[in-house]
């Protein structure tokens, strides 16, 4: 019969050429690349001066099904650990007090970076034309949403279990108070999402992620563990499991433009600008948080920087691209000087303005001072003596009425804020690669701490108009500003920031700050 003949024919054919019983994820990935559009006239909302090639590949061959399964396993493991074993072990309250304060900043500021990276990678999805490249960027959009939640969760977790939750509880409303905030917005927001799309990719993926997430998200877990914090490694190592795909995205951005003549013309300048932009903030801030925000030290920050930034990122990423015309960043020498000294410069200023923090700081102990001098010869004569003077004047005790910011005024050590990076610096005390330069533009004065930022400003002054904290609060008394920007605890009078981390130490209030009569002044006015 006809049907039997057809059935037999089909059975015979399948015996020779068997139908697949399942299809591998990478076969699906390959098949889906055929669902492409004609991008000859790509109309992106986010143009670039570079031409991104139409055949760029994605290194991990991800499809949505495997992506979702992979990420759900990561979340199950992370939240399982946090909500089960770590809670039963009271892990959130076993953290060294100084480190618990450090995590108020690290987790909350990283959350802002992750949030802006959602927009940055979505922008790159729109700019690219190769389907695989788009697929890589799209995965990153979803990753960044996950990371934003994870960072918020770290603050939430500590707000439940850390012995001093103030700051973890309300970081989002109080974080804008101090001078560290606007510099963080420069690297984590402006650097990622404004300007040329490829330039943003270099900032976010090739420098921010491939270079600085290794110290920021990997090395930080060693410091956390050393200081009794098992919460941060659980979350941050899980975050970083997505970062390797983001690093690959950044590398593939370079691959996609490598043969465009514009790359020979612009890429080295864009790379140097991105490197300087990112290092100008991350280098001093991370070094300060690790070394001054910990009781137990892992290794000198300059060694962490030398390993992850100079040797590995420099040699393995940038060095290998040399034959395609990529050069060693011209600002590297100054960046190396910063990696040795700039975090010490920054802590001096951060401690001087401690009332503006949403975290507590502590003067280096005798043990800390010995460690600093052993690892940074010359530290004591330059910085250590100043801390001894501040301690002798009672800077930790509210009854002294002494805020170290007053010492800067008394000794004519003027503090400026670099217009481009928004990082504060004191030209008469700095040992990092900073020196004062001032320009006037449209009737307004602008201070700069280095030639690299100055160059960026000279070519695009309208891009760097952010008002710094001295301009913003000029003429206003410090306690008024703190109260207005929610820098107090739930009693409405005690500051969140404090100049010590001891449980028995007295806590400063708004009245104590008011008695010191510190008034903001713009040094350029």
């Amino acid at each position, binding site marked *: 019969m006809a049907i039997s003949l057809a059935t037999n024919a089909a059975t015979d054919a399948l015996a020779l050429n068997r139908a697949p019983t399942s299809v591998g994820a990478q076969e699906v990935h*390959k098949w889906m690349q055929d669902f492409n559009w004609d991008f000859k006239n790509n109309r992106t909302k986010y143009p670039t001066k570079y031409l991104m090639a139409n055949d760029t590949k994605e290194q991990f061959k991800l499809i949505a099904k495997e992506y979702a399964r992979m990420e759900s396993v990561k979340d199950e493991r992370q939240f399982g650990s946090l909500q089960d074993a770590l809670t039963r072990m009271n892990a959130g309250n076993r953290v060294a007090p100084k480190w618990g304060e450090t995590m108020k900043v690290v987790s909350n500021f990283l959350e802002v970076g992750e949030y802006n990276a959602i927009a940055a990678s979505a922008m790159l999805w729109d700019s690219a034309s190769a389907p695989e490249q788009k697929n890589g960027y799209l995965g990153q959009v979803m990753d960044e949403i996950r990371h934003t939640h994870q960072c918020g969760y770290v603050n939430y977790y500590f707000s439940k279990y850390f012995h001093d939750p103030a700051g973890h509880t309300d970081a989002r409303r109080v974080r804008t108070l101090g001078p560290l905030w606007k510099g963080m917005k420069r690297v984590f927001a402006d650097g990622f999402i404004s300007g040329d799309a490829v330039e943003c990719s270099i900032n976010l993926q090739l420098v921010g992620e491939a270079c600085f997430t290794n110290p920021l998200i*990997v090395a930080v877990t060693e410091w956390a563990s050393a200081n009794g914090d098992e919460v941060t490694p659980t979350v941050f190592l899980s975050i970083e499991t997505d970062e390797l795909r983001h690093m690959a995205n950044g590398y593939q951005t370079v691959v996609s433009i490598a043969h465009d003549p514009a790359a020979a013309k612009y890429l080295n300048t864009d790379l140097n600008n991105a490197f300087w932009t990112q290092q100008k903030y991350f280098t001093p801030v991370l070094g300060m948080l690790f070394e001054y925000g910990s009781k137990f030290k892992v290794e000198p920050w300059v060694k962490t920087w030398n390993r992850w930034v100079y040797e590995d990122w420099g040699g393995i990423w940038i060095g290998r691209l040399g034959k395609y015309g990529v050069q060693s960043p011209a600002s590297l020498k100054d960046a190396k000087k910063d990696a040795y000294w700039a975090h010490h410069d920054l802590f001096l200023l951060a401690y001087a303005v401690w009332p503006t923090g949403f975290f507590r700081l502590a003067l280096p102990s005798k043990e800390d001072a010995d460690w600093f001098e052993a*690892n940074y010869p010359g530290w004591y004569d330059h910085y250590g003596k100043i801390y001894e003077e501040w301690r002798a004047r009672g800077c930790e005790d509210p009854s002294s009425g002494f805020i170290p910011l007053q010492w800067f005024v008394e000794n004519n050590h003027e503090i400026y804020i670099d217009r481009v990076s928004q990082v504060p610096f004191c030209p008469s005390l700095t040992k990092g690669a900073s020196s004062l330069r001032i320009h006037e533009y449209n009737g307004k004065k602008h201070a700069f701490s280095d030639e690299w930022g100055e160059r960026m400003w000279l070519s695009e002054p309208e891009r760097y108009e952010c008002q710094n904290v001295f301009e913003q609060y000029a003429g206003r008394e410090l306690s008024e500003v703190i109260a207005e920007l929610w820098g107090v605890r739930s009693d409405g009078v005690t500051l969140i920031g404090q100049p010590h981390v001891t449980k028995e130490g007295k806590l400063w209030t708004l009245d104590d700050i008011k008695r010191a009569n510190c008034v903001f002044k713009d040094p350029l006015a």
Partner: protein
Amino acid sequence: MTTVNDNSYDAGIMSLNGKDFADEYFKEENQVVKESNTVVLVLKKSDEMDYIVEEMLVKIFQKKNPTLVIQDRGGYWWLKADNSIEIDCEYASDILGKPYTIYDLLVDVTSTVGRAYTFGSTFTITSELMGLDVKLQDVAA
């Protein structure tokens, strides 16, 4: 588990301290990047990853590539080697006694310095410039 060679965590200048470190660090010749053909891999500790490190990377891969250094850094394994590091998930599946795909592996691959990619069941991180010097391959459909 640790092998001391040029790829060790504290090799070269990193073994120096204080002024000796500073003198080397600030030398003029060390103010530009130097091309390196090494790769770095960071693996988050987990049941599966600890087994893969001990049974595959130490016992098998390190014999093929003696430049591979593996160090315990608390929450993660830090690996560095010349040229490349590979992990075959079909073999991992055999020794773990359960299905274990490349995407299961990626759950605990925390960071990379170098060009990392997947092909079939193999995860590779290489110093080669994938997509520039060497074409990234698709699996056969």
